[in-house]
């Protein structure tokens, strides 16, 4: 059979599978898989064994190609979705600091949350945003949303919509404009923060849906950062936490915490040390820890297993790569 034919066959089989699954979802007879504990362990064992085989092959001098590595990454992220294994999550100090900082806010405090990310970074930041809103609404904190990234405010709306489905929060019957406000996006990066230092309204004359600033009871009396009790920044790059710290914290003395993508987080550690930031959530791990502290189980916790598996696969391949290298090195010496 030619390669081309094989490829076509694989695509055809996959398409049939997708159609059946989708039909199942729409029709309602498929509500999701869950491997039993035994099956989960068997799958894990199979992966480990196959990795050992690869290690053995490498020792024999047969290097595997890129595509095999790709395949393993795909498998190690996908399969844990269906596994019923649990793992213990340990709270790191910077997450604890962050939680303590929020926990000491009295009910009624005004919280500014800046959404500086877009959909591609949502897997890491959305779970944080959800548990953040959940905490704020459950504890009667008033939330003002803004965004320095065009899609930020939309992500905030999605998170709020989702959190509103919670029974405890739905029961509070929160009002837009009184309990929370989404002021939308503004261009200008750090200059927006700078201008907000003197006047919020000049940067956000209307909210996300066009209601004038002065008609929103929550923000009507909010002039600048001095009326904000706490700031929280969800950041995936520039502009983001670095800019917020440099302008809002350093110049206007805002108390601030941040949730960052794991890539961004290391750059913000110096700010925790110097006290400019009160804690940070780094990546999905941070999200899972925050979920644990706020007592909700969201996607952060749920996907941590995939995350751990993926790390293990990367580590395994680094080891295999090094085995190949040292084996090759010995051969040269001989």
């Amino acid at each position, binding site marked *: 059979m030619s390669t081309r034919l094989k490829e076509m066959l694989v695509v055809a089989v996959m398409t049939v599978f997708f159609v059946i699954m989708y039909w199942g979802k729409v029709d309602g007879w498929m509500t999701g898989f869950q491997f039993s504990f035994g099956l989960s362990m068997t799958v894990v064992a199979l992966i480990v064994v196959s990795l050992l085989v690869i290690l053995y092959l490498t020792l024999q001098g047969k290097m595997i190609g890129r595509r095999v590595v790709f395949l393993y990454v795909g498998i190690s992220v996908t399969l844990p979705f269906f596994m019923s294994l649990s793992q213990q999550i340990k709270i790191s100090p910077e997450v604890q600091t962050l939680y303590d900082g929020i926990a000491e806010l009295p009910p009624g405090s005004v919280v500014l949350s800046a959404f500086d990310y877009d959909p591609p970074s949502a897997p890491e930041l959305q779970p944080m945003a959800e548990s953040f809103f959940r905490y704020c609404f459950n504890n009667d904190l008033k939330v003002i949303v803004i965004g320095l990234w065009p899609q930020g405010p939309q992500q905030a709306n999605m998170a709020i919509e989702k959190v509103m489905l919670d029974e405890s929060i739905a029961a509070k019957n929160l009002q837009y404009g009184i309990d929370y406000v989404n002021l939308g996006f503004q261009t200008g990066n750090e200059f927006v923060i700078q201008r907000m230092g003197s*006047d919020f309204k000049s940067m956000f004359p209307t909210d996300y849906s066009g209601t004038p600033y002065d008609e929103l009871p929550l923000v009507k009396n909010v*002039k600048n950062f001095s009326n904000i009790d706490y700031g929280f920044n969800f950041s995936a790059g520039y502009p983001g936490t670095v800019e917020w710290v440099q302008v809002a914290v350093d110049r206007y003395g805002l108390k601030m915490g941040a949730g960052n993508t794991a*890539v961004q987080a290391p750059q913000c550690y110096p700010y925790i040390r110097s006290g400019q930031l009160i804690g940070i959530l780094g990546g999905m791990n941070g999200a899972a820890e925050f979920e644990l502290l706020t007592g909700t189980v969201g996607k952060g916790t749920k996907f941590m297993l995939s995350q751990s598996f993926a790390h293990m696969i990367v580590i395994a391949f680094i080891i295999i790569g090094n085995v190949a290298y040292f084996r090759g090195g010995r051969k040269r010496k001989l």
Partner: protein
Amino acid sequence: MFNCRRKSNGLCLSIFIVAAICSLSVSVKAQSETIDSTVVTDTNLVVAAPPTSVIASEYKYDDAEALELSWVPSIDDQLVDGLVLAYRVYRATNGGELEMIEELTPGNNNFTDHDLSGDSSYSYVVAAVTVSGEYSSNATAAISPEREWLNYEKKWLFLIALFITSAIMYFIRTARKKKLFVRKIAGLEAIDDAVGRATEMGRSILFIPGIQDMDDVQTLAGLTILGRIAGTIAEYDTKLFMPVSRSLVMTAARETIKASFQTAGRPDKYHDDIVTYVTDEQFGYVAHVDGIMVREKPATVFLLGAFFAESLILAETGNSIGAIQIAGTARPAQLPFFIAACDFTLIGEELFAASAYLSDEPRALGSLKGQDVGKALAMFVILIGVLATTIASAWHVEAMQTVVDTLSSVFSTK
């Protein structure tokens, strides 16, 4: 509740009474959510002393747009928690009516009023707010904000920047007279070889100046390096192509290549299609460049400029087609990926030094030497500063503390 063993039992008692009234009033507050000054009931009239010594003064180093206000908080605010609910700042412009401009939390004793104009005069009143009403201070004298022409707070920033720029300029001048030593930078040594290899293999060269626009210095650095190597490429008669993600970068890159080809004596080799605009979208651009890479299979790939997450996608794809890759960026987060997937990587400062280094022009090389003066200064200050502050804090040596204070006032950027 109160520890009243001291002599001032009278004071203690009065505090107790006020506190009792206050706790009553707080319950009133809880009932009426908003602070309404008209709510006055007979039983709990809460009187507070107004703030005193309200002074409006010039806000330093601005463009006549702000005034600073300070006051001594109401004595009741200082003695009893929760009696004063807020401070309200009122402003009268050019002797007109008072209007409220700000409400501050208790305990505050200053406020900066921005968005003023140098043409008007302003006077202020600060009032302490309790549940029963407002208790206003006397009005301040009318004052106009003034414009300062120089910001003396930034004098040290100015002087140190001046010192370093002078050092750079000094070496630029000296370099014209005598050749200065500059150490080898590995990635740069390899550039000629990389261009040569593409020529030998009869394949093309791909140049990527990062994904930022012309308002990022890293893009400028990338383009200046392009200016240095485009000449060699023209001489070798190698095919160059350069998809870019910004329209302005496209324009500037075309000018750069045209000029270099001209200088190399091969203006005939130049045509606009060397540089093409793809899309401003980060990953849209990457999707296209990745595709182009596997289809064109360039022998050499340059990745010089500002890179974000796409660094590894590009570098890994380049690696998979077996291209020689020379990368450089000043974004620390992306450096490890270039180091892992490319043959040579210019780390941070080296990216900016590269064009000077490649030009072999004495003036440009001199500027590198000037940079070293800055580094030496930074190292010296770190060394002295760390030693001094360690000694000062551990053994309380007065003289060392002076050194530390001086240094921190000089280098303070807050």
